[in-house]
Protein backbone atom coordinates (compact mmCIF):
# COMPACT_ATOMS: atom_id res chain seq x y z
CA UNK A 1 0.00 0.00 0.00
CA UNK A 2 0.98 3.63 -0.29
CA UNK A 3 2.02 5.47 2.82
CA UNK A 4 2.04 9.22 3.15
CA UNK A 5 5.47 10.15 4.49
CA UNK A 6 6.39 13.58 5.84
CA UNK A 7 10.03 14.59 5.85
CA UNK A 8 11.29 17.68 7.64
CA UNK A 9 14.79 18.87 6.77
CA UNK A 10 16.27 21.41 9.19
CA UNK A 11 19.73 23.02 9.43
CA UNK A 12 21.83 21.16 11.97
CA UNK A 13 21.95 22.62 15.49
CA UNK A 14 24.78 25.08 15.96
CA UNK A 15 25.08 25.70 12.24
CA UNK A 16 24.51 29.30 11.21
CA UNK A 17 21.07 29.66 9.64
CA UNK A 18 21.08 33.09 7.97
CA UNK A 19 17.52 32.60 6.78
CA UNK A 20 16.23 31.80 10.24
CA UNK A 21 18.13 34.77 11.60
CA UNK A 22 16.61 37.17 9.05
CA UNK A 23 13.10 35.87 9.71
CA UNK A 24 13.59 36.20 13.47
CA UNK A 25 14.77 39.77 13.03
CA UNK A 26 11.84 40.64 10.77
CA UNK A 27 9.30 39.10 13.16
CA UNK A 28 10.77 41.19 15.95
CA UNK A 29 10.45 44.40 13.97
CA UNK A 30 6.81 43.54 13.14
CA UNK A 31 6.15 43.43 16.88
CA UNK A 32 6.07 39.67 17.41
CA UNK A 33 7.99 39.59 20.68
CA UNK A 34 9.55 36.62 22.39
CA UNK A 35 10.46 34.68 19.25
CA UNK A 36 13.76 32.83 19.51
CA UNK A 37 15.86 30.22 17.71
CA UNK A 38 14.07 30.45 14.35
CA UNK A 39 15.29 27.77 11.92
CA UNK A 40 14.12 27.61 8.33
CA UNK A 41 14.16 24.24 6.58
CA UNK A 42 12.13 22.27 4.08
CA UNK A 43 9.07 20.07 4.31
CA UNK A 44 8.81 17.26 1.78
CA UNK A 45 5.83 14.95 1.36
CA UNK A 46 6.14 11.59 -0.33
CA UNK A 47 3.82 8.75 -1.24
CA UNK A 48 5.82 5.56 -0.75
CA UNK A 49 4.76 2.06 -1.78
CA UNK A 50 5.65 -0.31 1.06
CA UNK A 51 4.32 -3.28 3.02
CA UNK A 52 4.47 -1.64 6.44
CA UNK A 53 4.85 1.86 7.87
CA UNK A 54 8.27 0.86 9.19
CA UNK A 55 9.38 -0.13 5.72
CA UNK A 56 8.14 3.18 4.28
CA UNK A 57 9.97 5.06 7.00
CA UNK A 58 13.19 3.15 6.38
CA UNK A 59 12.95 3.90 2.68
CA UNK A 60 12.40 7.59 3.37
CA UNK A 61 15.44 7.64 5.66
CA UNK A 62 17.59 6.19 2.93
CA UNK A 63 16.27 8.86 0.57
CA UNK A 64 17.18 11.53 3.10
CA UNK A 65 20.68 10.18 3.51
CA UNK A 66 21.27 10.02 -0.23
CA UNK A 67 19.41 13.01 -1.59
CA UNK A 68 16.79 14.85 0.39
CA UNK A 69 19.09 16.17 3.12
CA UNK A 70 22.69 17.32 2.96
CA UNK A 71 24.37 15.17 5.63
CA UNK A 72 26.99 17.86 6.18
CA UNK A 73 24.60 20.67 7.02
CA UNK A 74 21.13 19.29 7.65
CA UNK A 75 19.23 16.95 9.97
CA UNK A 76 15.96 15.30 9.05
CA UNK A 77 12.86 13.96 10.74
CA UNK A 78 10.65 11.34 9.11
CA UNK A 79 7.02 10.73 10.05
CA UNK A 80 4.57 8.29 8.44
CA UNK A 81 0.80 8.89 8.45
CA UNK A 82 -1.05 6.12 10.23
Amino acid at each position, binding site marked *: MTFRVHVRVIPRPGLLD*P*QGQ*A*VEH*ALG*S*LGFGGVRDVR*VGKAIELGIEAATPAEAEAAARRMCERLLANPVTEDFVVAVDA
Partner: protein
Amino acid sequence: MPRIAVIRFPGSNCETETLRAIARAGGEPALLDYRDTDLQGAQGVILPGGFSYGDYLRSGAIARFAPVMGPLRALAESGAPVLGICNGFQILCEAHLLPGALLHNTQQRFTARPVDIRIERTDTACTGHYTRGQVIRVPLAHGEGRFVADEAPLDALETANPVALRYVTVRGRGLPANPNGATRDIAGICNPEGNVVGFMPHPERLADPVLGDDVGLGFFTALVERCRGAEVGA
Protein backbone atom coordinates in the same frame (compact mmCIF):
# COMPACT_ATOMS: atom_id res chain seq x y z
CA MET B 1 14.15 68.76 -12.61
CA PRO B 2 11.88 65.93 -11.44
CA ARG B 3 13.08 64.26 -8.30
CA ILE B 4 13.07 60.49 -8.47
CA ALA B 5 13.84 58.44 -5.41
CA VAL B 6 15.61 55.09 -5.30
CA ILE B 7 14.89 53.21 -2.11
CA ARG B 8 17.67 51.15 -0.61
CA PHE B 9 16.69 48.16 1.47
CA PRO B 10 19.23 46.10 3.39
CA GLY B 11 20.65 43.93 0.63
CA SER B 12 19.72 46.15 -2.33
CA ASN B 13 22.64 46.19 -4.75
CA CYS B 14 21.57 47.95 -7.94
CA GLU B 15 20.96 51.38 -6.44
CA THR B 16 24.14 53.00 -7.82
CA GLU B 17 23.51 52.23 -11.48
CA THR B 18 19.81 53.07 -11.08
CA LEU B 19 20.65 56.50 -9.63
CA ARG B 20 23.13 57.02 -12.45
CA ALA B 21 20.53 56.14 -15.08
CA ILE B 22 18.06 58.63 -13.59
CA ALA B 23 20.69 61.37 -13.72
CA ARG B 24 21.63 60.47 -17.28
CA ALA B 25 17.96 60.63 -18.23
CA GLY B 26 17.73 64.18 -16.87
CA GLY B 27 16.13 63.50 -13.50
CA GLU B 28 17.31 64.44 -10.03
CA PRO B 29 18.18 61.18 -8.29
CA ALA B 30 17.69 60.79 -4.54
CA LEU B 31 18.73 57.80 -2.46
CA LEU B 32 16.24 57.00 0.30
CA ASP B 33 16.47 54.50 3.14
CA TYR B 34 13.91 51.78 3.85
CA ARG B 35 13.38 53.31 7.30
CA ASP B 36 12.38 56.70 5.89
CA THR B 37 8.79 57.60 6.61
CA ASP B 38 8.40 60.24 3.95
CA LEU B 39 9.56 60.34 0.36
CA GLN B 40 11.18 63.76 0.64
CA GLY B 41 9.26 65.28 -2.22
CA ALA B 42 10.00 62.59 -4.77
CA GLN B 43 7.66 62.63 -7.76
CA GLY B 44 8.47 59.10 -8.71
CA VAL B 45 10.07 56.11 -7.01
CA ILE B 46 12.17 53.19 -8.16
CA LEU B 47 12.66 50.06 -6.07
CA PRO B 48 16.03 48.79 -7.28
CA GLY B 49 17.34 45.29 -7.83
CA GLY B 50 19.30 43.25 -5.34
CA PHE B 51 18.60 40.81 -2.58
CA SER B 52 16.64 42.67 0.09
CA TYR B 53 17.06 40.69 3.31
CA GLY B 54 19.10 38.16 1.38
CA ASP B 55 15.93 36.95 -0.41
CA TYR B 56 15.44 34.87 2.71
CA LEU B 57 12.03 33.24 3.17
CA ARG B 58 10.74 34.59 -0.18
CA SER B 59 12.23 37.39 -2.23
CA GLY B 60 10.57 40.65 -1.26
CA ALA B 61 8.62 39.06 1.62
CA ILE B 62 10.39 40.90 4.41
CA ALA B 63 11.01 44.19 2.60
CA ARG B 64 7.29 44.78 2.04
CA PHE B 65 6.94 45.58 5.75
CA ALA B 66 9.59 48.35 5.71
CA PRO B 67 8.46 51.74 7.05
CA VAL B 68 8.95 53.39 3.66
CA MET B 69 6.30 51.15 2.09
CA GLY B 70 3.45 53.20 3.67
CA PRO B 71 4.24 56.49 1.89
CA LEU B 72 5.18 54.50 -1.21
CA ARG B 73 1.70 52.97 -1.35
CA ALA B 74 0.14 56.42 -0.96
CA LEU B 75 2.28 57.78 -3.79
CA ALA B 76 1.31 54.85 -6.02
CA GLU B 77 -2.38 55.39 -5.26
CA SER B 78 -2.03 59.06 -6.16
CA GLY B 79 -1.10 57.95 -9.68
CA ALA B 80 2.58 58.87 -9.53
CA PRO B 81 5.08 56.58 -11.26
CA VAL B 82 6.44 53.69 -9.21
CA LEU B 83 8.84 51.26 -10.87
CA GLY B 84 10.19 48.01 -9.45
CA ILE B 85 13.16 46.40 -11.15
CA CYS B 86 13.94 42.73 -10.41
CA ASN B 87 13.94 42.58 -6.60
CA GLY B 88 11.87 45.77 -6.69
CA PHE B 89 9.29 43.95 -8.84
CA GLN B 90 9.27 41.10 -6.31
CA ILE B 91 8.64 43.58 -3.49
CA LEU B 92 5.76 45.26 -5.40
CA CYS B 93 4.14 41.85 -5.91
CA GLU B 94 4.58 40.87 -2.25
CA ALA B 95 3.10 44.24 -1.28
CA HIS B 96 0.13 43.59 -3.62
CA LEU B 97 0.77 46.77 -5.54
CA LEU B 98 1.03 44.48 -8.55
CA PRO B 99 -0.75 41.15 -9.08
CA GLY B 100 0.93 37.76 -9.15
CA ALA B 101 4.11 36.37 -7.65
CA LEU B 102 7.67 35.55 -8.70
CA LEU B 103 8.86 32.03 -8.07
CA HIS B 104 12.16 30.20 -8.49
CA ASN B 105 13.20 29.85 -12.12
CA THR B 106 12.04 26.57 -13.69
CA GLN B 107 15.62 25.39 -14.13
CA GLN B 108 16.20 26.00 -10.37
CA ARG B 109 19.33 27.99 -11.06
CA PHE B 110 20.22 31.64 -10.98
CA THR B 111 20.20 32.89 -14.55
CA ALA B 112 22.25 35.83 -15.79
CA ARG B 113 22.22 36.58 -19.49
CA PRO B 114 20.93 39.01 -22.07
CA VAL B 115 17.26 38.64 -23.00
CA ASP B 116 15.23 40.00 -25.87
CA ILE B 117 12.07 41.66 -24.67
CA ARG B 118 9.18 43.12 -26.62
CA ILE B 119 7.54 46.34 -25.49
CA GLU B 120 3.84 45.38 -25.22
CA ARG B 121 2.44 48.76 -24.29
CA THR B 122 3.81 52.24 -24.40
CA ASP B 123 1.30 54.01 -22.16
CA THR B 124 2.89 52.96 -18.86
CA ALA B 125 4.92 55.21 -16.61
CA CYS B 126 8.22 54.14 -18.17
CA THR B 127 7.77 52.67 -21.65
CA GLY B 128 6.72 55.74 -23.64
CA HIS B 129 10.14 56.09 -25.21
CA TYR B 130 9.84 52.86 -27.14
CA THR B 131 7.43 51.87 -29.87
CA ARG B 132 4.84 49.19 -29.36
CA GLY B 133 6.23 45.85 -30.51
CA GLN B 134 9.83 47.07 -30.41
CA VAL B 135 12.28 44.35 -29.34
CA ILE B 136 15.25 45.36 -27.23
CA ARG B 137 18.05 43.31 -25.70
CA VAL B 138 18.92 44.00 -22.06
CA PRO B 139 20.65 42.11 -19.24
CA LEU B 140 18.76 39.90 -16.85
CA ALA B 141 19.98 38.30 -13.63
CA HIS B 142 17.82 36.53 -11.07
CA GLY B 143 17.02 33.27 -9.34
CA GLU B 144 13.35 33.97 -8.70
CA GLY B 145 11.81 35.51 -11.78
CA ARG B 146 9.11 33.08 -12.87
CA PHE B 147 5.98 35.21 -12.96
CA VAL B 148 2.81 33.37 -12.05
CA ALA B 149 -0.77 34.41 -11.41
CA ASP B 150 -4.02 32.48 -11.26
CA GLU B 151 -5.37 31.78 -14.70
CA ALA B 152 -8.60 33.73 -14.10
CA PRO B 153 -6.93 36.98 -13.02
CA LEU B 154 -4.40 36.45 -15.80
CA ASP B 155 -7.16 36.60 -18.38
CA ALA B 156 -8.57 39.66 -16.66
CA LEU B 157 -5.04 41.03 -16.54
CA GLU B 158 -4.49 40.46 -20.22
CA THR B 159 -7.88 41.96 -21.03
CA ALA B 160 -6.97 45.09 -19.16
CA ASN B 161 -3.73 44.78 -21.14
CA PRO B 162 -1.27 45.36 -18.35
CA VAL B 163 1.54 43.13 -19.64
CA ALA B 164 4.26 45.67 -20.20
CA LEU B 165 7.10 43.47 -21.43
CA ARG B 166 7.34 39.97 -22.79
CA TYR B 167 10.30 37.70 -23.51
CA VAL B 168 10.57 36.93 -27.21
CA THR B 169 12.66 34.68 -29.41
CA VAL B 170 15.05 36.15 -31.89
CA ARG B 171 15.93 33.62 -34.56
CA GLY B 172 19.28 31.89 -34.45
CA ARG B 173 20.22 32.97 -30.98
CA GLY B 174 20.40 29.45 -29.63
CA LEU B 175 18.78 30.24 -26.29
CA PRO B 176 15.25 29.70 -25.01
CA ALA B 177 13.41 33.03 -25.16
CA ASN B 178 11.83 32.60 -21.78
CA PRO B 179 14.68 32.54 -19.24
CA ASN B 180 12.71 31.45 -16.20
CA GLY B 181 9.50 29.70 -17.18
CA ALA B 182 7.31 32.76 -16.62
CA THR B 183 3.63 32.29 -17.45
CA ARG B 184 2.81 33.58 -20.93
CA ASP B 185 6.42 34.82 -21.29
CA ILE B 186 5.65 37.74 -19.01
CA ALA B 187 8.75 39.82 -18.22
CA GLY B 188 6.96 42.79 -16.73
CA ILE B 189 3.48 43.99 -15.83
CA CYS B 190 1.74 47.14 -14.64
CA ASN B 191 -1.39 48.03 -12.73
CA PRO B 192 -4.51 48.95 -14.74
CA GLU B 193 -3.66 52.65 -14.43
CA GLY B 194 -0.17 52.00 -15.82
CA ASN B 195 1.62 54.05 -13.16
CA VAL B 196 2.97 51.10 -11.16
CA VAL B 197 5.28 48.95 -13.27
CA GLY B 198 7.46 45.98 -12.39
CA PHE B 199 9.79 43.92 -14.52
CA MET B 200 12.63 41.44 -14.15
CA PRO B 201 15.24 42.64 -16.71
CA HIS B 202 17.83 45.28 -15.83
CA PRO B 203 17.78 48.15 -18.35
CA GLU B 204 19.72 50.35 -15.89
CA ARG B 205 22.78 48.20 -16.62
CA LEU B 206 22.68 49.13 -20.28
CA ALA B 207 22.30 52.88 -20.10
CA ASP B 208 25.84 54.00 -20.95
CA PRO B 209 27.09 53.99 -24.56
CA VAL B 210 30.61 53.06 -23.40
CA LEU B 211 29.24 49.65 -22.43
CA GLY B 212 28.35 49.05 -26.06
CA ASP B 213 24.70 50.13 -25.93
CA ASP B 214 22.40 52.44 -24.00
CA VAL B 215 19.10 51.01 -25.16
CA GLY B 216 17.98 50.64 -21.54
CA LEU B 217 18.07 54.38 -20.89
CA GLY B 218 14.64 54.85 -22.54
CA PHE B 219 12.82 53.52 -19.47
CA PHE B 220 14.38 56.22 -17.32
CA THR B 221 13.91 58.99 -19.86
CA ALA B 222 10.22 58.08 -20.07
CA LEU B 223 9.90 58.00 -16.29
CA VAL B 224 11.56 61.40 -15.92
CA GLU B 225 9.32 62.85 -18.62
CA ARG B 226 6.20 61.42 -16.99
CA CYS B 227 7.18 63.16 -13.75
CA ARG B 228 7.97 66.35 -15.60
CA GLY B 229 4.54 66.17 -17.28
CA ALA B 230 2.89 65.80 -13.89
CA GLU B 231 4.89 68.79 -12.66
CA VAL B 232 3.63 70.97 -15.52
CA GLY B 233 0.10 69.66 -15.09
CA ALA B 234 0.06 70.52 -11.39
